[in-house]
């Protein structure tokens, strides 16, 4: 049972078809499976529905598949950073279904967990709730949201073993673990590929059962969207208290 593939192209071979639903991990450009996105561009499949919190930026992340006009519809919570997106959307070439970020994350988690629907307070009384069931529990009204399953999930992890067990690094974890559970097939790109037993089993975040194919990307592209820094001479008074403006 070999899950390890030589490169992103072969890891996706036989899995891609026009009109499919693809989940892509990442938050902004952090923790995105960019080598797999590039391989999807090269494969040329079209009319994709892509479930991803964001839509990349021009020429980066999912922006690559927008540039190549392979995406028909995005299911996202925020797409503000992408000019190509704006142009295609205004031209009526691209559909968008906005989901509140937490609703999106939970819909994905539910899809992977065999839960077809759940209730959430999020969006009650807003246009997001229009056409959806509303139900009261213990005096509070909730909106029913549906689980989502994808034909394919593409995710990025920091390290994986050949069984498909994965760990993530810092906030590059984000949507990757729930999406790994919600793909009928899940392909993971990893920055470091190790052998089974090299990762402490108490530390594994995604058990190998969720990963059908894995590819080592030694050339992982990791962008920074908003480079915010502070000067060394400045007193680090705010350390321990949070983000410093």
């Amino acid at each position, binding site marked *: 049972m070999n899950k390890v593939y030589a490169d992103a192209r072969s890891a996706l071979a036989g899995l891609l078809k026009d009109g499919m639903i693809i989940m892509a991990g990442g*938050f*902004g*450009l*952090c*923790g995105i499976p960019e080598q797999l996105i590039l391989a999807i561009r090269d494969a040329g499949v079209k009319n994709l529905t892509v479930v991803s*919190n964001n839509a990349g930026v021009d020429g980066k992340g999912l922006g690559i598949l927008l540039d190549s006009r392979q995406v028909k519809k995005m299911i*996202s*919570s*925020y*797409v503000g950073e992408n000019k190509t997106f704006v142009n295609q959307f*205004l031209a009526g070439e691209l559909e*968008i279904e*906005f989901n*509140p*970020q*937490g*609703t999106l*994350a*939970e819909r*994905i*988690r539910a899809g992977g967990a065999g839960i077809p629907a759940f209730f*959430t*307070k*999020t*969006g*009650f*009384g*807003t246009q*997001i709730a229009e056409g959806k069931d509303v139900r009261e529990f213990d005096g509070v009204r909730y909106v029913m949201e549906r689980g989502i399953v994808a034909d394919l999930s593409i995710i990025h992890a*920091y390290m994986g073993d050949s069984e498909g067990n994965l760990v*993530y*690094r*810092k*906030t*590059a*974890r*984000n*949507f*990757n*673990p*729930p999406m790994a559970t919600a793909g009928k097939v899940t392909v993971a790109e990893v920055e470091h590929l190790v052998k089974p037993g090299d990762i402490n089993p108490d530390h594994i975040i995604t058990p190998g059962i969720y990963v059908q194919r894995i590819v080592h990307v030694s050339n992982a592209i*990791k*962008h*920074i*969207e*908003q*480079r*915010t*820094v*502070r*000067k*060394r001479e400045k007193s*680090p*008074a*705010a350390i*321990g*208290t*949070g*983000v410093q*403006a």
Partner: protein
Amino acid sequence: MPWTREQMAARAAKELKDGFYVNLGIGIPTLVSNYIPPGMSVQLQSENGMLGTGPFPFEGEEDSDLINAGKQTVTELPTTSYFNSADSFAMIRGGHIDIAILGAMQGAENGDIANWMIPGKLVKGMGGAMDLVGGVKKVVVVMEHSAKGESKLMRRCRLPLTGAGVVDMVITDLGVFTLDKAGGGLTLIELAPDVTLDDIKSKTEANFKVANTLKQ
């Protein structure tokens, strides 16, 4: 004299308590972290999957795997933990975050808030805002009192809502209002320096009561 953005942030920081878990929106709310009193332990949640968000990194120490919900590079603290997006919003939706401080385009006397879309303009999406206002224990809105001569504190929001009946407090450059979500409406509890009750009444569309203990 109305409060500056920094003063509004400082006023919002007074709502924090030792041990609080806090989510700060972008804009003025981000400034709140500069006014956390020394010795008070407050952990900032970033909804992309981090609790215990530290300050911006020193130049050259940026880490592409370490960002906040505004996609800005940040740092780790000894208290930091990481989790996935579903777990992050389970934390938010489950009522575990003590307070969210966020901006708004409009707020209303019934606790409604609008801050994600303007019909006719390109919509970027609501991100985590609907989840935050629906799930966090206390929701504090920080915004300018008026925009283009119109009160942003209204009888009813005219923009599409982010949340219905969710706001607990509104801090503007003119004063501070509490909101009783159970139907008790808005109450003015504090005025910015040199702002008079008549000033704020003339600039507010929403109905509000005035606290006996009104401070200035």
